[in-house]
């Protein structure tokens, strides 16, 4: 009984402790941004990254690429800051507000974790233009907010079709990091694409963790266990939408031996993953966050900014399929018609499995 009580106390202090940690370190990292630009009347862009920040070789780096392009082509100046693991809502609000306070009038928030803070800070600063990546909920809605999402299901549809065309065992797999509506879009597209090509195909789906436990995006050990299970059950291609846990999926493909493949996600992982597994990456579902970021900054710069929802789809180059390694060149003639049908709208890809 006493232990139960202690545990409760621990849980409470832990939550409080983490919250405190998040907001404390915020002042440090918030101020550590870099200020570059051409001075004068240049547009001042504030970037608030998700956990990991610049250099994560994935989601945030893609956003940084968009900012870098805006810096060199549009001559904007920028300040960057990043989120901490497990930080409190107030820490994110404070980060956005401090960007606004230091004179940055165009703010990009990377990741759905910022939804509520963007909604709140945007309301308090009606003259500042905001963009949020990966959220289209009412939380972040506002007259000065562009809500940028991507049609992950469309890119996933194409890699699903590629997997179904390439499988020799008629059995493929999917590993999702955390079971959220966002990751379900990946799964839904993948299932639909694979079944379109081969209706009889067997597809295993596994999610590593359930909300509110988001460790599934950073646990390669679980990723490997899940993918091992799918390979050993007979699958020969596994697609992951599991962030950092994906490294485990690649290792599982390597351990499974010849003729076993993995499909990467977000960036072209045949270029960014551990060199010893790059040759096993059949293709990657690329999500060009950079396109969204650049487009938003450009629209503010030339005065064409429009608040509201904006989805970057296959037709805008917001999502796509990587061809590094040339493993899917032989099925290009079968994938291209599908791509065109998605773009023309004659194939409607579902967003829930």
């Amino acid at each position, binding site marked *: 009984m006493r232990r139960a009580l202690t545990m409760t106390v621990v849980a409470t202090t832990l939550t409080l402790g983490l919250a405190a940690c998040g907001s404390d370190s915020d002042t440090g990292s918030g101020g550590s941004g870099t200020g570059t630009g051409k001075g004068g009347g240049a547009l001042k862009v504030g970037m608030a990254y998700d956990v990991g920040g610049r250099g994560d070789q994935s989601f945030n780096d893609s956003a940084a690429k968009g900012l870098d392009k805006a810096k060199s082509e549009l001559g904007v100046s920028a300040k960057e800051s990043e989120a901490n693991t497990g930080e409190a809502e107030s820490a994110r609000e404070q980060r956005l507000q401090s960007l606004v306070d230091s004179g940055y009038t165009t703010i990009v928030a990377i990741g759905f974790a910022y939804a509520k803070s963007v909604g709140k800070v945007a309301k308090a600063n009606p003259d500042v233009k905001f963009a949020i990546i990966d959220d289209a909920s009412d939380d972040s809605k506002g007259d000065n907010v562009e809500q940028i999402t991507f049609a992950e299901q469309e890119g996933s549809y194409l890699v699903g079709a590629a997997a179904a065309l390439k499988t020799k065992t008629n059995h493929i797999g999917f590993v999702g990091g955390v079971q959220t509506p966002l990751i379900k879009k990946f799964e839904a597209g993948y299932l639909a694409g694979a079944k379109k090509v081969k209706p009889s195909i067997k597809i295993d789906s596994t999610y590593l963790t359930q909300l509110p436990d988001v460790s599934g995006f950073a646990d390669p050990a679980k990723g490997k266990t899940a993918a091992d299970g799918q390979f050993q059950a007979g699958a020969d291609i596994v697609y992951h939408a599991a962030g950092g846990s994906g490294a485990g999926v690649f290792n599982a493909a390597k351990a499974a031996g010849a003729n076993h493949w993995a499909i990467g996600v977000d960036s072209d992982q045949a270029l960014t993953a*551990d060199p010893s597994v790059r040759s096993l990456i059949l293709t990657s579902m690329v999500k060009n966050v950079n396109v969204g970021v650049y487009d938003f900054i450009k629209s503010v710069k030339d005065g064409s900014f429009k608040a509201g929802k904006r989805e970057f789809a296959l037709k805008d180059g917001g999502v796509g399929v990587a061809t590094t390694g040339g493993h899917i060149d032989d099925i290009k003639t079968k994938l291209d018609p599908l791509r065109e049908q998605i773009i023309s709208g004659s194939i409607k890809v579902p967003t829930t499995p």
Partner: protein
Amino acid sequence: MTAGLEIGTRVVQDAPRSRRIPTKYLLASGVAGLVLLSLLRIVTGANDIDSGGIISAALIGAVPIGLAGLGGLWSERAGVVNIGLEGMMILGTWGAAWAGIKWGPWMGLVGGIVAGLVGAAIHALATIGFGVDHIVSGVALNVIAPGATSYLASRTFTGLQGGGPTQSPPLKQLPRFSVPGIEDPLTDLERKQWFLLSDVAGILRGLLTNLSVVTIIAILLVVATWWILWRTPFGLRLRSCGESPVAAETLGVNVYLYKVYGVLASGALAGLAGAFLAQVAANAYREGQTGGRGYIGLAAMIFGNWRPGGLAGGSLLFGYTDAARLRNAGSNIHALILLAAVLLVVIGLWQLLRRRRVVQGVIALVVGVGALLMYLLTDQVSSELAATTPYVVTLLVMALASQRLRMPAADGKIYRRGEGQ
């Protein structure tokens, strides 16, 4: 120093002898379990429930939990509650990756242990030196460790090929061992899907092939912990500090020193758990990769009644159920529901008819029949439900075994020298 330990007016005893189960019953229940598992596999068609792959995955899942739990055991047997295991483990993941990249995989293990020791030294200084509440100190460590690690990782891994602020470059692998010449015959036998023989082959293949050297070290550490703590004078003194430090002091034991030993051993083991996670299970450091395994290790220790064998069993149970749901939740967990249903009905009947415990018996029967219905009415288990399996199974075992858990008597109490006077 033989029959128990009589200190002052209190008698501190080993676990009561009368509760020890004779070896022949253990063997018989092992065989019965195998037959049951084999029958289950054939009835449900879930061939993965005792395959070599799942056993091997269960071992990999169990090792970090077991090592963390073993760390908790050392500390709590010396009377210091160590909720900071998670933090020490996080430090261990970074230490292992950093030292591993600099000096090779073996030094990586050492780096993990040293990083864990640093965390433990802080905990020891706070709790034993300054008399800070054990929980407060441990929680503080769990808050400091992720922050410190995240800072260190971004300082050390950014700019390396394949590294970044939240991940290390891929790490070099430690050696793996297999008993020679058995892998192929066992795999063949397993594929035949014969009753009992294939099951034994699968389990043996999982336990005897492709074992990481750290897994072997972990198993040896469980045995070594038992031997040191329960069979040597050093262990007796250390445990006496957890049971009655005042009495130990009157017999001339340097209680502070023994508590420090316990906490440091705890940090080393938790650091090794982190090293295993980064080097063996994942092949890289990744921010947040411990995912609460330190807390689960602590739970495994309590589950195991503060004994090495018990906590090893708890870790394996947890590792197995987690592997089962990650590998193929649909059919594995579905099959395990049938097993749970049958076991619950049997236990319920036994409680009712033999032990005349109406309440426990009826509850077990009702839950068992409910599980049976669930098995019959569904073909698959949804992934939301499957994710809870490891926790549900642990709860069920705890509830039904109704074992009397006994923590060390002075566990978590702040001790000051001379306070008994």
